[in-house]
């Protein structure tokens, strides 16, 4: 999963402080690994440099935690295009797609449609493999079957996720 895009996604729900961002990130994505403050602030300054977010005022006092940040139009465009980009079947797919699905729920975007985009991309790959398999020698067919099973496993996970969207939405709201 791309952690900076996940952070950008969490920030899109509304202006945030660094410490808010860390606790929201950890609540939603932190099961495997929480994020360090250092990485939050490094990511924030990189995103400011890239014009994806901007600082919108500072509360009295000093220290990085007093600053509030908001996502710019460029940041929203970047996020939207990432969300809509299907992931190629690979071991990182699950974590990326998980992040996108959660963020779509956080942002009240159409999570079902997002999963459908991924379904179509997976099916397109399965179709290529199925066509290649028709004329292939037996040993090649076994290798192709292996690839097909991998993609099918992703698709089953997608089906399960999409069947659970309503519950996930409630869960995400609790962390919002």
């Amino acid at each position, binding site marked *: 999963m791309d952690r900076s895009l996940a952070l950008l996604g969490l920030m899109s729900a509304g202006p945030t402080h660094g410490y808010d961002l860390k606790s929201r990130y950890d609540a939603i994505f932190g099961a495997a690994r929480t994020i360090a403050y250092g990485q939050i602030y490094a990511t924030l300054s990189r995103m400011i440099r890239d014009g994806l977010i901007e600082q919108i005022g500072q509360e009295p006092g000093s220290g990085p935690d007093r600053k509030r940040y908001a996502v710019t139009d460029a940041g929203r465009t970047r996020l939207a295009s990432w969300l809509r980009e299907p992931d190629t079947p690979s071991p990182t797919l699950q974590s990326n797609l998980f992040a996108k699905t959660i963020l779509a729920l956080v942002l009240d975007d159409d999570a079902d449609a997002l999963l*459908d985009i991924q379904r179509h991309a997976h099916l397109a790959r399965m179709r290529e493999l199925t066509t290649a398999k028709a004329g292939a020698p037996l040993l090649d067919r076994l290798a192709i079957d292996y690839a097909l099973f991998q993609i099918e496993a992703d698709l089953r996970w997608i089906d399960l996720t999409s*069947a659970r969207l309503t519950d996930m939405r409630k869960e995400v709201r609790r962390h919002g």
Partner: protein
Amino acid sequence: MADPIITATGLTKSFGPTQALRGIDLSVERGEVLAVMGPSGSGKSTLVHCLAGVISPDSGSVVLDGTDLTALSPDQRAKVRLQRIGFVFQFGQLLPDLTATDNVALPLLMAGRSRRAANTQAIAWLDRLGLGDHADKSPGSMSGGQAQRVAIARALVTRPAVLFADEPTGSLDSVSSESVLGAMLEVVREAGTTVVLITHDARTAAYADREVIVRDGLLSGAYAPVPA
């Protein structure tokens, strides 16, 4: 370029309080193999029943091979189905005690063909589906995969313009499913038959040229474009 054989516009259908279809637009190209996917209860069968003229939508229209099905009486629709549409279901459409040949010949006999002509055609289709040696067996004594091949031969023997298949390999294991689908796709592509294939199985859908996903009575459309 586009040459749709089915054009459905604005289809809605309710069963009592259940809105099974909530406004579906769909067109299928001549010779295309289309997979219809979606969760159980999403409206796949209802959609396909409307496309095939088995039921009439509450609103919207279906034009199949130049005929507006929604403008026809039930009797006229039945005639169109007999002449231009083939159906394959998961199971239960064959007469288990007749021979495979008799089962496949039946639709031709109903259309008024002679027994001899019907049998010749039936045997040719069974042969195409790899059942040349089993023409005299009864489906009741066949494996599930062989019986589905007989069902496919029976659906195709009248040379329908469109074949509708609702989970045709849903009751088969993956090896027989693959060989049945492979055989079916080979003959339909050769004959240029359009196929609308309902399946929740991705492997099966991967044999199609394209898939649509039905969700809560609507086609899952393109995602909203990325804001500029």
